[in-house]
């Protein structure tokens, strides 16, 4: 019973933290003229949960965060982009984690790159414009950079935050 309460609390706090991070991020101006470039601060929570508690904790938090954020701040289009990015990113990170050969940084980079790829795929599907693939190279590079930063934070979180049980 105690373990269950702990899990419920952990997932609730994680979802809230991820949502706040996603909101804080919208306040930071992005100096690039490429649509979709962002830091992905909320992914620190996802990587942390994935490492500490596995996909059964990370996946639901990611989905609930996207659902709640879209309900509060978004519209249908933004929901479609968020959910496709978040899902593809999470699945790729779960697969990367399963190999057991990558650190938080590698997992986070893969998550960031697949997040951007998922949004591009959704944008192509929604607008029927295959030329949007033009944005893939800059988005992949930005995913590498932000993924390394987010992964480094996740390394610290995993090291510093310890569950006593």
């Amino acid at each position: 019973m105690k373990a269950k309460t702990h899990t419920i609390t952990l997932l609730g706090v994680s979802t809230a933290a991820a949502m706040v991070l996603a909101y804080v991020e919208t306040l930071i101006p992005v100096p690039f003229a490429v649509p979709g470039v962002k830091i992905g601060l909320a992914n620190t929570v996802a990587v942390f949960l994935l490492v500490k508690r596995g996909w059964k904790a990370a996946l639901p938090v990611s989905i609930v965060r996207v659902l709640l954020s879209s309900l509060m701040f978004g519209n249908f289009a933004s929901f479609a982009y968020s959910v496709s990015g978040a899902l593809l990113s999470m699945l790729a990170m779960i697969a990367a984690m399963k190999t057991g050969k990558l650190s938080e940084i590698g997992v986070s980079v893969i998550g960031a790159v697949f997040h951007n790829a998922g949004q591009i795929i959704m944008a192509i599907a929604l607008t029927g414009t295959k030329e949007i693939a033009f944005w893939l190279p800059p988005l992949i590079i930005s995913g590498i950079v932000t993924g390394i930063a987010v992964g480094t934070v996740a390394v610290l979180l995993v090291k510093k935050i310890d569950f006593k049980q």
Partner: protein
Amino acid sequence: MNRRTLKNDVIVIAAIAVVAAVIWCVVKLSSKAGEFAVVELNGVETARYSLNEDIRAEIACGDGCVNTLVIRNGEAYIESANCPDKLCVKQHGIRMTGETIICLPHRLIVRIIGEYGVDATV
């Protein structure tokens, strides 16, 4: 995290960077100077301008949304827009076939096409 996983991280990151470079090369090699800028709203072509003439056109898309398209020196760009994110204004001018400026909030796409109106890329 240890030295071994860190090495794997570097390999994965390098591989991803190579993929990005390959996609970039394919995109660049398959494009050439275009002839027309095509304006699409909601996926439907509404106007077509030659890149050889300098113009400034107001593109209205209902509900008061306006993008100002400018063609100058064979290059098309969005000079101003009243969409919330202004990403289309920040984007560089386009002149090669297949290049696009996309304003997602207004569902507006400006794309460059080649000779005879044929979409030459891909």
